């Protein structure tokens, strides 16, 4: 005789024991108590081909290379009596702004963290100062996206052959209206795509045109753009995605 019982997998059943399904020996499960959690953490931040342990080592190395001195050391600014008495006399009194700046012991990293936090919160340190923060942030993000898109296209094919496509791509960052305006601009003739001299000029498939020079209006628009944020201006990884070189130590 045997009896059939419905196993409930809720832990509320009876304190102390419960049914657990078994699927034979599972090596990963067996190892779990010893190194499961740590490995899980280590691989969690895995960005592609390197483990997070390697990534940490690289980050530490880069931070090391960024130091002024090997050891942490404080070099105080010498105290000067003369400043207060003689030299200071001719100058105006130290303002509260100046005093605050001089007393600030913040490092660049501190300032950058503040800035990043402000940008991500939307109110923005940029915005706080500019009064038009939201727009700036959006613009910066848009540029970033545009940069990604474009860098995926190999440079040689970047629209040299197809001026119309090239205009379309610039249009992706400036409003489309801008492009049409440009075409009706005054010196229309000068901005027409110029034929690049080559032996294939007679072949409609192979002849190539130099892309037109953007109009003044577009240039003014570009010049008026706000700067990217510190992190957005950082160089991206190489587009070719060639794997890094490795050297054996000697």
């Amino acid at each position, binding site marked *: 005789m045997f009896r059939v019982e419905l196993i409930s997998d809720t832990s509320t059943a009876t304190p102390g024991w419960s049914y657990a399904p078994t699927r034979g020996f599972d090596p990963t499960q067996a190892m779990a108590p010893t190194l499961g959690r740590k490995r899980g953490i280590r691989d969690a931040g895995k960005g592609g081909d390197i483990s997070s342990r390697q990534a940490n080592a690289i980050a530490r190395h880069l931070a090391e290379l960024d130091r002024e001195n090997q050891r942490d050391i404080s070099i105080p600014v010498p105290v000067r009596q003369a400043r207060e008495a003689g030299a200071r006399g001719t100058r105006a009194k130290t303002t509260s702004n100046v005093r605050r700046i001089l007393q*600030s012991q913040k490092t660049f990293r501190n300032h950058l963290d503040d800035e990043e936090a402000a940008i991500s919160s939307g109110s923005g340190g940029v915005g706080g100062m500019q009064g038009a923060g939201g727009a700036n942030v959006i613009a910066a993000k848009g*540029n970033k996206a545009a940069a990604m898109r474009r860098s995926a296209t190999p440079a040689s094919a*970047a629209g040299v052959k197809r001026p119309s496509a090239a205009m379309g791509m610039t249009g992706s960052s400036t409003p489309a209206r801008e492009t049409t305006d440009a075409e009706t601009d005054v010196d229309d003739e000068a901005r027409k795509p110029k034929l690049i001299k080559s032996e294939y000029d007679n072949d409609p498939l192979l002849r190539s045109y130099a892309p037109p020079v953007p109009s003044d209006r577009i240039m003014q628009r570009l010049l008026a753009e706000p700067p990217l944020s510190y992190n957005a201006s950082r160089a991206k990884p190489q587009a070719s995605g060639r794997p890094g070189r490795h050297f054996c130590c000697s």
Partner: protein
Amino acid sequence: MGTAKARAPPRTPATPTQPVETSRYLPDKTFIIDNGAYMIKAGYASHAPASDESISGCSSIPNALVKTRDNKIVIGAQLATVNDWNEAMFRRPVEKGYVVNWEAEREIWDQSFFDGKVTARNQDYHIADPEDTTLVLTEAPNALPILQRHADEMVMEEWGFGGYARCLGPTLNAWNEIHSLFGDPVSNTSDASILPADCLLVVDSGYSHTTVTPVYKGQALQRGIRRLDLGGKHLTNYLKEIVSMRQYNMVDETYIMNEVKEAVCYVSNDFSGDLEKAWKSGQKRQSGPEEGTVLDYVLPDPNANKKGFIRPHDPLLHAKKKKGAVSGLSAEVLSEDVLVLGNERFAVPELLFTPGDIGMKSAGVPDMILQSLSVLPTGLHSAFLANVLVVGGNALIPGFMERLETELRQIASAECVVRVRRAKDPVHSTWLGGTRLAANREELSKVSITRQEYQEYGSGWAVRRFAGLV
């Protein structure tokens, strides 16, 4: 905001400057400070139309506080008096190209520009009456607004300059006479007013970073500015690290390793070939002194008052030294410490071209140029690629220019002409550009603010003004 350029022409709507425009007073005397992380380049702009010789008006002042081995603290220009650089420690007010610590920077500026009386020695860079001087101060691109604000407040409130312009450093290079550098016909030289170049792609490789800035008619195209967080400092530290691992412990010898770097490093134009060569000449221990990539650097000996120097590698030196006086070497040679530099010579500056060698997920300088162009209209690509100007101390590393031009040629579109030139004096080029901007009073007054305006509208306005928003 990173820009310091006022977008003056396209913006006519009422700005606070308009009403006072008529009575604006911008002092005639212009002082230019290119505040580099390693070296401050400073001096007055001469009133005569700037020629290339006016570089003599520029003084270089180390931008650091140094604590020497005997615990003396030495500041700025006084560094020239230091003889013993062993274990010298540095404090630099500039981090990542931006002035972060004004406590230290004020001390250096005060001592260099403001203290004491005018003497024959310091007359080129002594500012006796700031309220009667216009200051042109450079900054690195993409600065944090808070740091910009700090700079403005210090300049206007601590020193009280009569006029002030905060400019993006790389853009000033466009004011230099670059047509002759690129071999273009020099146009309208007789014309009195100096104007910036139309299109210039400035690669600035300095102490703390390397930036690429497309400059259009003297203004930066902000979206195209790219930065690689590698500069001279990282190269020195990397060399220090390799040498410490392979030979002597040099981790505390930043200054000396910097000298070694400047003496021996070069950018390879055939990396794997040079690697092979360096390896082979390391193998041949039997032969005598020979030519090759391997060099010996004799470390300085402050006790004997001797400076460091390079000489051809002698593979037998070590063995001879072991034998001591028997080998017939002079006591002088026996007492000296020698670093043998093989593949270190080119593996270190290689970082600028393949940052992946230290695991950095970033493109090298040539690829960064294309990344910068990729966000600009294609119609401008050919103009920028034909006018690539390299400034900054790393441009002086032998082989840097050749390598950059070769690689850029390979990856750039075949239809475009690629011309890469080093500024005549890559270190002072930005400063010199500043003097030429100052010679064009009209342009200078467009990008400057006056003391009165600052007092009226405050520092928040100044930041917006330099960002071209008002």
